[in-house]
């Protein structure tokens, strides 16, 4: 096994990743920081970088950060595992779930 450094860290809040930024698209305009109804984000201390998700467990999953983003693909909503619904294709009976 690799000997990676080990840190003492508190347990993260859950759900921990309501939003996933793509740093290749996000240019840190902070529109999402401005409009979030629950004040989940903080602007990054590094100009041009994606915001920090400081309060992930306060996310309402309303999606306005994605809806109002200036750059499509810069961020996406990421449903918690326990809320990923399932569906069935009628013709084949195949089952699917939200990925």
């Amino acid at each position, binding site marked *: 096994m690799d000997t990676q450094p080990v840190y003492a860290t508190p347990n993260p809040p859950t759900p921990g990743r309501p939003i996933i930024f793509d740093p290749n698209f996000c240019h840190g305009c902070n529109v999402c920081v401005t409009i979030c109804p*629950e004040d989940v984000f903080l602007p990054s201390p590094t100009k041009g970088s994606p915001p920090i*998700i400081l309060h992930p467990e306060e996310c*309402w999953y309303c*999606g306005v950060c*994605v*809806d109002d983003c200036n750059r499509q693909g810069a961020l996406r909503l990421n449903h918690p595992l*326990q809320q990923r619904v399932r569906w069935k*294709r*009628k013709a084949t009976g195949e089952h699917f779930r939200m990925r």
Partner: protein
Amino acid sequence: MTSHSSLPWPYPVRYGQQNSYDTDVLILGGGIAGVWAAIAARRTGARVTIMEKADTRRSGAGGTGVDHWNYAADNPCSAVTPEEMTQALVDNHYGYRSGISTYILNSSAYETLLEMEAMGGKIRDTDDEFKGAPFRDENTKLLFAYDYTNRYTIRVWGANYKPLLRRQCKKLGVEILDRTTATALLTERGAHGARVVGATGVDCHTGAFVVVRAKAVILATNRPQRIFTFSSEQRGSAVHRGGSNVGNGYAMGWRIGAEFTMMEKTMRTVFASPYNFPIYGSGNMHNTWYPATIVDANNKEVPWVDCNGKVLATADERCRPAEGQKFFLMGGGNGYPPPGLKQYAGPRLIPDLEARMLKGEFTPPFYADLTSMPWYERKVIWGLMVGQEGKTRIPVVQTYEKAGFDPAQDMLQAYDFLRGQGMAEVGAPQERTFGEIGVAGGMLVDWNLMSNIPGLFGAGDLLFGSQDHGNAATTGRYAGARAALYARGVSHGELDAAQVEREKKRAYAPLAESPDSIDWKELNFGVARVMQNYCSEVKNEELLTLAEMWLNDIEQNDLRRVSAANPHQLMRALDVMDILTCAQMIVQASKARKASSDALTFRRLDYPESDPPEWRKYIVINRDGNGGVRVTDRPLGFWGDLQSNYHPRHAENIAAMQRAQVSTAT
């Protein structure tokens, strides 16, 4: 990475700094009701300021969208008059729904929607997407929901309404204080129950203290949530109303002596549980998904029936009144009580589905099957309704479609019955809610939407016996004009320095270090636990007295322990302090009603008779000047004649807006 320790706070910290403003009409809460109130008040010529905890572009329970403009009986296609509609809605709640706000809604919903259209909101099928659909009026291109014969509820493309309303506020010159949470109302000479002269707030990013002097104040904040259930880890996606909806206006109004009614009404409901699925994001057949086909695991269709029990053969029949019925209110078989009157009951799934499933006639799990529905129903449910409704465009439509869901091929699972519950996915007993959905208690107001406190108005969900996006818009618009007209006739009151200082001390208390500190979440869990144990499904005097005792104990001994490390946490701490106050209001109202009531989903073991004639009335509570609680009552229908009370005021509102001619260029 999503968790960061000890990052420098990115905003300037200004604890203690006082930012002062002066206005005619101050609106606390900039959601749907608040921005409509601001636009109307400004058009009436008043100087207007909004104080909003989040950001007015998207804030509020309705800030993320709306898909159906309910009960717009004033629209040109409606076969139901506003008077009939209000009567039906009030009767269907056994009298416990406000005739005032309901009539304002029924008489001005379409008129308000036309204003929305003038601001750039899409309200009709101008792209002819639904040409030929039975719910479309070919002349107006309006689309209707639910009762296709009577056409009183309009389907709309409302996902972008809130940013448009905010833009209109800016154009009209409304002063907007975003990220500022209101904390207290200020009264003349600081006296309890006296005229309102302003309000205080705290900047949620800088922590600065905000004082606004105003001639009139409109409370437009949402209802208290997280009273019975709180789960910081599972809640967000599953609830209609976001974490910021905590009843700030209720608490602020209560503290200065405003009257509230129906506060004893709490309920078990589909959306209260933190264990539910994304709102509108699982298979069902009511509200936004009406009238979806439901099938079982073997693709066997679950029959729909009308209020007479007649089995309905087609999807179209689910949208028509039954024989002998002039019109129906929303159908689908919503499981939340009260059940409503048969004469207004809409089509629904067979009521004995659970029994028939247990006998083996149907096999769980069930699915919502849009694949077998006519194209226009599939398209209007998935894409317009689920797509424009609050919290559906991104969380449901975009996210599910990206994951491969195709409404033309796939059936979305319904989670009903899987946990031993009925079709309504009703939560566990302790998972009660104060008005997560439905008509709820709130501030008692008159036909000016003014409370017993001079100059204190209300709008939207905070009003007693009210609900819905259209209600927020129409009552906001009406209250804005009434408050502006009131403000014309009064001079500014003097702020009481001692009252301001007392509030500043209270609001900043969580910033002090405490050796046994707790955070806002622990306080919320604590309050919710008291409510689960002592003010839940069953109540009696002893239980309610214990609830009162423990909540007062928390107020006296634990609030001082609540600690906030930055302005965001301070906002949340203040929120939960208001949740505690709202819980106390619910307990007081529950103590005051000494009878059970099916109509209010209220059960007292010591007074088991439900809705006895002498208790068929509104129980009204407010705080007296000595910290005690005053209990009074009002008869059902106390608001009197609808038309003679509403029309002169409405005409005055419209005339004042036209006369003032406030330009969007100013």
